[in-house]
């Protein structure tokens, strides 16, 4: 794995959705390490543990038990260590209020599930390329 390779933290409690993401990456021969968390609490714990390198991206579902996506985002943005983490929301919710809330918490993108499989794969490939180019603090 190159130092510029992006590590992914996939925060989603739906196992099929998780499998979908992994499959997409695999299909595209993307070898980014994918870490998983079932909810916001787990996600925070993983991040704080330092399990991920600084060059990282959080793919965040909104609808999760215990600590949902928006709550996680709020916690993230108030944590001085973690506040600059890039987050892309990956959710079924098309509600305006969710979008507004997410962007208010400075997400880098908002994607809707279900995404048709091929396009999802393309999306992940694009993401990877993009983040490879991008400088990270």
């Amino acid at each position, binding site marked *: 794995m190159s130092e510029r390779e992006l590590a992914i933290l996939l925060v989603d409690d739906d196992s099929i*959705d998780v499998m979908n993401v992994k499959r997409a990456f695999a299909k595209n021969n993307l070898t980014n390490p994918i870490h998983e968390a079932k909810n916001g609490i787990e996600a925070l714990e993983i991040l704080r543990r330092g399990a991920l390198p600084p060059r990282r991206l959080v793919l965040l579902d909104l609808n999760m038990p215990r600590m949902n996506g928006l709550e996680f985002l709020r916690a993230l943005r108030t944590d001085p260590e973690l506040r600059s983490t890039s987050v892309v929301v990956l959710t079924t919710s098309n509600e305006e209020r969710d979008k507004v809330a997410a962007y208010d918490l400075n997400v880098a993108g908002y994607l809707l*599930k279900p995404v048709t499989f091929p396009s999802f794969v393309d999306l992940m490939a694009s993401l990877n390329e993009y983040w490879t180019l991008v400088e990270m603090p």
Partner: protein
Amino acid sequence: MSTANLGRAPLLGNGPGSYRELDQWTRAMRLMADVGTLLSSSLDSEAVLQQLTRLVVPTIADWCTIDVLDPAGEVVRLSAHHSDPDKVALVLELERRYPGNTPARGGVARVLRTGQTDWMAAVPDTKLHAAAEDAEHLHMLEDLGLASYLIVPLSARGRILGALSLVYAASGRSYTAEDVTFVEELAARAALSVDNARLFEEQVEARQRLERQARQALLVGDVGAALTRNAKLGEGLQRCTEALLERLGASLAGIWTRDTRGEGFELCASARVEASVAGGLDAQALQPDIERLAQAAAPFFASDTERDPTLRERAWVRAAGPVAFAGHPLIIGGQVIGVMALLAPQPLAEDTLTALASIADTIAIGIERARAEQRARDERDTLEAVNEVGRALAAELDREKLVQSITDYATRLAGAAFGAFFYNVVDAAGESYTLYTISGVPKEAFSRFPMPRNTKVFAPTFAGEGSVRVHDIRNDPRYGQNPPYRGMPAGHLPVASYLAVPVVSRGGAVIGGLFFGHPEPGVFSERSEMLVAGVAAQAAVAMDNARLFREAQKLIAQLDESNKELDQFAYVASHDLKAPLRGISTVSQWLEEDLGEVLTETTREQLGLLRSRVQRMEGLINGILAYSRAGRKRSRPELVATDKLLAEVLEMSAGPAAARVEIAPDMPALCCERVPLQQVFLNLIGNAFKHARRGDPHVRVTARDDGKDFRFSVSDDGPGIAPEFHERIWGIFQTLEPRDSIEGTGIGLSIVKKIVEGKGGRVWLESQEGAGATFHFTWPKAERDVEGDIGGV
């Protein structure tokens, strides 16, 4: 004949007998002088004339009579005198026994008639005999003697007042012509004097009458002024009684009016002259006679109460002594509204009674007017009071405060010492009422003994039978009959006057009752009852409103709650229900991918079916959510141009490229919520596209003015719908095609129906199988702006 002639004395020395003549003349002159003195001594004509007869006898007559004409024109022997005192009675006897039938008498009649002197120097016997009626008569005449007579008229100012008859009898004298002249002169003077006296009396009487009339006019004036200038009736009537004393010389005067209960009369004003005997009385003493007089409704006069048969037994009559009593009823419209009465030390003249009658009317009118003004003032006060209460109550929606206010107001208006409002709530035993509010005393005063029982006293009020007003409930047979209490329970508030008014809602149900009490009896009048009834009516309305307001608030809160729940449900459903579906779909795709080579046509097909069912499920879920949301979310009505709205709809609906949509040129603008109307058009046009059999469906949208609504129509040239299905298609998830073969879930029309009917409109279908379909719906031209957002934000 002038006195100048009399002054000519016969010359002395006129021959023998001249001394006698002189003596006679001197006596005549003396007589004349005496008569003159007599005439000027007194105004009492009768006495004077009587005295005159004594003067002329025996100087110029042996006996004489004076006859006068009475007011009726009858001849009356006024006076007679005889030189022989014993015979005076005889003269009068003669007149009595044989009236008008003596020679002298017959002469008198003639003289009275003609005013000419009648005399005879010597009366022959034959005449005497002829004049006598019978032997007795003749005897009397001879006894009296009638030798010569002279009858002269007493006339003055052209009027014959009477006749003076002079007779010589035993003295042997006879009348001469000179005597005639002399006596005529004498008679003339006497007559003049009598006439003067009469005139004088008439003048005096006239002046007295004028004075009385002047006083009566002043009395009428006083009464009028008293009643118009005094603001209070009592003061005005007092002035009237004083005027009666002043102008009519009464010593005691009083005016009675009907008492407030309308049962009898009470003394309203009185005045008396302290110094008089009748003044020692109190006008109150006359009460029984006043009542009787009012009963009879007629005036009553007694010029001497001590002699009057109906009055003389009274104690006050005996105390007052001889007085005149006058009483007059005061009548308005045939009703006796009062009595005026007075006592006077002198008899009352006829015109005084007439004056009383006229001022009686004035006083009656004055009383009635004062009463009417009072009634009008009371009405106005009542209205103001009730309106004030109404205004205050209308503003109050908090039930507790409202009921307390009602009780306070009503207690005050009724003039009660304390008042209470009880709700009409009966316990299981069917007895108690819930005390709700109290006014006038602290709540503890009522708390010490159990709720008022379903007693006979309270029952009528709660039955809504109307108001109950009792003068003194301690004497009321309905009270105090409830065991274990006998009479008023110990610790109970002291109640004598009692008033109870039901509070009845507009629907007729008895909400409760207002109860008032006062330790003194007779406090509550008809007016208090009226006032409280007015308040009770206001109260019923106010309480109804408060209740409705409360209920409305509850309902709104419930609706809000319900809608929030629904929204929450919808939100959750759309995620949680769909997530597994997504999973199924995804995995089935993976299966297809991963099992690629192993799959047969059949199994591939089966996986396809799996996915399509998943899609259907998602569609159904979306449909439910859409249906539940439809029509709930309220927005503000705005001015919507339907042509522009339809243009947007067309952009939103993905129809076949070759579809032709014709929108009528006269599409209206209306004031409505934009989104629901758009949804309806979207669904209908979408349906038309969805069900089209051709690649180039033709859809037409038109509008029509329907009075309060617009009627919109969406027509297509699709397959149409057979009439037997026209009802069914509106149901949720109802489709006419097999569920797999179309994209729709069958929810579109149910949403259309829900939205349109939610606006109070109608939606219906015109279609035949194979002949296209036209959907019509109505929409109000102007929607009211609903305050607040019933569906939640």
